[in-house]
């Protein structure tokens, strides 16, 4: 069995690209990944295109741009976890030896504002006005504040960190630093979440080239190893699905379960992670993931940010790219954008965002209906 490594990454800036067709966005990211790997497109043996809101046959349309080499390129849909699902297919094909070089890319173009609810929810859920994502993040936040004394200031600190890191990232949508005070002065959207604590859906594409370790030496870049790549759909009933209900239990969350599987598969633990990119749809969700991914005990997410552990320069920087809060979220491309950052970090190429001596990186996504992905990358020895 081969080991899967990443030999090339590329991404467009995540932001607003009103005048660029989605096939051109995707082709730009793929060209960058090919250049990064020093690879010709005709070397690619299989491709997977992750997308959510784009039309049928998005991947095939991108192949038209890249040149029809006759390879398979199906679309992989999995809400905000679409790219984690795509990466898993690419990695599986390389690990099982079916192919040596698989391209995994994602692309999306999202309008500003709420995502169209009718695509995800039943009529009654839309008619009752209960479909908007920020409200369930807010309900999680309110409960966490009630149980553990987490504060609005702690949540705002995470938002300020996102804006600060985003200001260092040329691929980010929001590049203006903002103080905790400015964030706390922005309008409440769903208590306790305020406007500048929320991520925005946007446009962009990102690509990674997955390669067998047996032939990775043919390409230029020092490869980064895929130590684990887990994608799952929530095992237990989820409050934001088709019945808006669950039963109070102490079941673990899908992200905690996916992270556990990823750590076990890689033979690593949360204490080994040097840098992480997580699904900060909103500043509170990042705090929750500190706990769920095992970076700190349950209830101590607020202290984790107070102590500066997740800041650049801290012991475990989280979202050095600025995360979803600074980059926005082009759904199909989102996890590949996270991997782009982690690969740069592990190669020591992250410039002013560089985490010193980063050897192991984690990327995590979570989306509608419980789609969850956790990928662990480690630098080659």
């Amino acid at each position, binding site marked *: 069995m081969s080991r899967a490594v990443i030999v090339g990454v590329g991404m467009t800036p995540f932001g607003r690209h009103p005048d660029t067709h989605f096939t051109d966005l995707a082709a730009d990211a793929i060209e960058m990944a090919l250049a990064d790997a020093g690879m010709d497109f005709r070397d690619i043996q299989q491709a997977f295109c992750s997308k959510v809101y784009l039309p049928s046959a998005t991947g095939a349309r991108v192949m038209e741009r890249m040149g029809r080499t006759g390879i398979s390129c199906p679309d992989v849909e999995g809400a905000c976890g679409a790219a984690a699902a795509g990466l898993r297919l690419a990695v599986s094909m390389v690990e099982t030896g079916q192919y040596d070089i698989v391209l995994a890319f994602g692309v999306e173009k999202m309008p500003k504002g*709420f995502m169209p609810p009718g695509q995800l929810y039943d009529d009654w859920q839309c008619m*009752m*006005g209960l479909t908007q994502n920020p409200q369930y993040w*807010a309900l999680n936040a309110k409960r966490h504040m009630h149980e553990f004394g987490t504060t609005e200031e702690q949540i705002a600190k995470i938002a300020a960190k996102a804006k600060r890191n985003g200001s260092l990232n040329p691929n980010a949508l929001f590049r203006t630093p903002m103080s905790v005070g400015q964030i706390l002065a922005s309008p409440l959207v*769903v*208590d306790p979440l305020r406007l500048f604590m929320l991520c925005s859906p946007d446009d962009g594409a990102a690509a990674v080239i997955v390669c067998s370790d047996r032939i990775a030496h043919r390409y230029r870049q020092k490869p980064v190893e895929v130590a684990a790549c887990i994608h799952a759909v929530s095992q237990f009933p989820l409050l934001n699905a088709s019945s808006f*209900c*669950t*039963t109070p239990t102490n079941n673990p969350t899908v992200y905690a379960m996916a992270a556990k599987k990823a750590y076990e598969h890689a033979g690593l633990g949360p204490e080994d992670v040097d840098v992480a990119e997580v699904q900060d749809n909103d500043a509170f969700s990042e705090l929750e993931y500190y706990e769920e991914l095992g970076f700190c005990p349950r209830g101590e997410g607020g202290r984790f940010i107070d102590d500066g552990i997740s800041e650049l320069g801290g012991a475990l920087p989280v979202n050095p790219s600025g995360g979803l809060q600074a980059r926005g979220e082009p759904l199909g491309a989102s996890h590949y954008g996270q991997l782009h950052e982690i690969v740069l970090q592990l190669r020591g190429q992250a410039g002013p965002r560089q985490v010193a001596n980063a050897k192991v990186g984690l990327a995590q996504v979570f989306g509608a209906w419980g789609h969850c992905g956790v990928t662990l990358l480690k630098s080659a020895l």
Partner: protein
Amino acid sequence: MSAILERIGFKPGFIAGDLHNLDSLRLSGIRCGDCGIALLGVRRRCENCSSTKVTEEVFSSEGTVYSCTIQRYPPPSPFVGVQPWKPRVVAWVDLDKKGPRILAPIEGPADLVTIGLRVVAQFNIGWTDERGREVIAFSFLSSTSSGSRL
């Protein structure tokens, strides 16, 4: 005499009782004979453990707020709330007697709704569907303000 309009529940299998007698209505669903959990809506299999040993159950209308927030913006179309839009409370409510935890709007002043508040379900005509039928929907209100309705 005006014709009585046909009525349907907001979703089949989620509501039990006589749709023309709103006070008779309850939220309903299943309880799993294997893992014991309760979920809104009649289903063939338990969503939690995939068991087919599920039995239909009518849930208590009373519950306790597990978490709550204030929606300060109007939800996107096709939302059919009261116009003009006013911020409203949305909560997760744990129904009594080991019922499910459900997402629901809470009627009444936002500042009175807190975690732990006792609430009771109420049913009303939410909207009219494209075939002219009245659709019965639900919300909750504080049981201290509404009086006890078991």
